């Protein structure tokens, strides 16, 4: 089916619908908002699958050692034509590797952030530090190859831990549970770097967080699974079979209030995309209190980045 809108616009429109439903007469329409949440999920799947496809293509170009350049940070998105939208990624059986990976990405609560925009290839030349962060991916128990490390990590070629860097790169080491983030604005703080227990490497793995410019392998994700709510504080995304138990720093607490006055603010939208970790869940997730919560030994940042704000309370959970 042809769609005249790209995934990001659809997401933006959907969020606006949810926001405006709060003020409609008669109260929140549960049915309509549920349907809108499905569109959000579908658009997000495609958005992420496109990101992944792009990154995969780049990895093919730079197979070893060279820094992987992620999409440049560019709010708002360039005025390139919207990506071709074909059919959405189907259950993995029917799909190629790329789409399957993206399904896994989508299904995972581990997705903490997504890039801002789809970058045309010519923007690859930009300095690493200016690159936005890519999405990063879940551990896969089905990683091919016996020698492959179980963890999954995407490293952008960015200067980790450099606060001055304008990049939004966030890197997660699923083996050591180390999360390092170069913050930009309202995105995550370095969380686990503040927590000694988090920074302890997993057994058998003494490697420190990847140095700048290092590329680690990543693997196709798991089978797409049923959309399920991911509970606050619940360790791991649902259904990661055999992967290391992992819970990201709770993403829901960390997002700036969505501003209805800036519907074109795609960076806001990108952040909000991650909220919709699984279908309806993100919409009904409550405002989190100060986000300090121990999760499998991780301590999320004490700096409570704002609650989701008004629009998420659009869905009234009785």
């Amino acid at each position, binding site marked *: 089916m042809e769609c005249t809108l790209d995934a990001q616009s659809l997401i933006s429109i959907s969020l606006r619908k949810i926001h405006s439903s709060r003020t409609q007469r008669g*109260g929140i329409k549960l049915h309509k908002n549920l349907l809108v949440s499905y569109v959000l999920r579908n658009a997000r799947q495609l958005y992420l699958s496109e990101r992944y496809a792009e990154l995969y293509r780049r990895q093919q170009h730079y197979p070893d050692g060279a820094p992987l350049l992620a999409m440049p940070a560019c709010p708002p998105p360039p005025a390139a034509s919207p990506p071709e939208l074909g059919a959405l990624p189907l259950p993995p059986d029917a799909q190629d590797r790329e789409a399957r990976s993206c399904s896994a990405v989508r299904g995972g609560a581990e997705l903490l952030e997504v890039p801002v925009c789809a970058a045309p290839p010519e923007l690859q030349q930009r300095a690493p530090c200016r690159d936005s962060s890519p999405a990063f991916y879940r551990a896969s128990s089905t990683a091919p190859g016996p020698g492959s490390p179980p963890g999954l990590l995407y490293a952008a070629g960015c200067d980790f831990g450099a606060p001055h860097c304008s990049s939004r790169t966030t890197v997660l080491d699923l083996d050591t549970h180390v999360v390092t983030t170069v913050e930009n604005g309202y995105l995550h703080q370095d969380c686990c770097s503040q927590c000694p227990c988090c920074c302890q490497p997993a057994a058998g793995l003494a490697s420190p967080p990847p140095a700048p410019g290092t590329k680690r392998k990543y693997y196709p994700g798991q089978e797409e699974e049923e959309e399920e709510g991911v509970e606050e504080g619940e360790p791991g995304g649902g259904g990661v079979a055999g992967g290391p138990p992992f819970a990201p720093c709770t993403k829901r607490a960390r997002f700036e209030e969505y501003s209805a006055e800036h519907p074109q603010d795609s960076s806001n939208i990108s952040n909000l995309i991650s909220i919709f970790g699984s279908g*309806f869940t993100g919409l009904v997730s409550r405002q989190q209190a100060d986000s300090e919560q121990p999760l499998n030994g991780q301590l999320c940042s004490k700096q409570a980045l704002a609650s989701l704000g008004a629009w998420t309370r659009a*869905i009234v959970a009785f």
Partner: protein
Amino acid sequence: FPGAGGGNDIQWCFSQVKGAVDDDVAEADIISTVEFNHSGELLATGDKGGRVVIFQQEQENKTQSHSRGEYNVYSTFQSHEPEFDYLKSLEIEEKINKIRWLPQKNAAQFLLSTNDKTIKLWKISERDKRPEGYNLKEEDGRYRDPTTVTTLRVPVFRPMDLMVEASPRRIFANAHTYHINSISINSDYETYLSADDLRINLWHLEITDRSFNIVDIKPANMEELTEVITAAEFHPNSCNTFVYSSSKGTIRLCDMRASALCDRHSKLFEEPEDPSNRSFFSEIISSISDVKFSHSGRYMMTRDYLSVKIWDLNMENRPVETYQVHEYLRSKLCSLYENDCIFDKFECCWNGSDSIVMTGSYNNFFRMFDRNTKRDITLEASRENNKPRTVLKPRKVCASGKRKKDEISVDSLDFNKKILHTAWHPKENIIAVATTNNLYIFQDKMN
């Protein structure tokens, strides 16, 4: 070959139109439900302003054998008022979501009307005579001084102008947390069900202070919500059987004898999705907006955004018939999502003999599908065709390519003119079709 001519094909003619003429539609006048009573003599409409208007068919006139009686206003009353739930800071709309008639037991008529939260049982009764000649009261009601009474007389009933009174006999409130979408009267004529997004309750018509919850699909954690109830109906003959449809395109048939809480269905009707049709909006367009049993009780019909499906109650894995209402909209779903039209809830109905089904569309078009001949027809409800006994001209939408004469292209369809509510007389070929704020009545051409 759609609809025109042929021996058995119905030729539909304009009969009447009710409602304001001007294009500026007052929101309160938007028609939200249409329902014939069991005899077809009465036709009720509900609107967004909480009013119910009942039309009554004139008795057939021997001198006017070429047309059936006209429908004229019989009673108008305010059924529901807007309310405010202070606890939740929510306004409760007065819009009438559904009207269902009870079968007539005595001189009075009874109907159930519901808004989002409260169901009311209304008694509509006629008064055509009044007592006159009281001894202690004047005709205007003032009391007479007893000392002035010198003779006594017996009051007698004298005819008066017909007065139709509607009075609320029962109010069934405070049983629904979510928005009520359906009510359905059981074939025992003693109980009825009401359904909201997540629950279905069973009531006794005489008892207002309690109801039984018979279906509850609310998950323990609302974050796990994946589907809601969209419609529910009792089986026309089996008083223990009902169905409810969901936003996921499934229909569940439940037997109340099986257990007190019918969360486990007896049958699940579901057609697997065609993967080649997958889109962003697949979930929306598969959501069922209406479910109706056939009069026989053997079939049920469901309406989703693009199609009407007929299900045999004995076959759960797919419908026995599928009719495309406006397949040309499939490539427009994106725009229809933007303008919210994709959320429109179309209803559907059977004719009296279960041989034809009808449903609405956009541009004030409505569609009929003949199950026997497999022919379908598209007609338009428009004041331009309002000469009585003029046969309606079939319409055709041109999906793509070269538009033929008299065809309408998809892009010129008016999506603000939608027909969501239609009703078919239980016995005759008389149909009521509601546009935004007008009610059209069409009849077949009698020779």
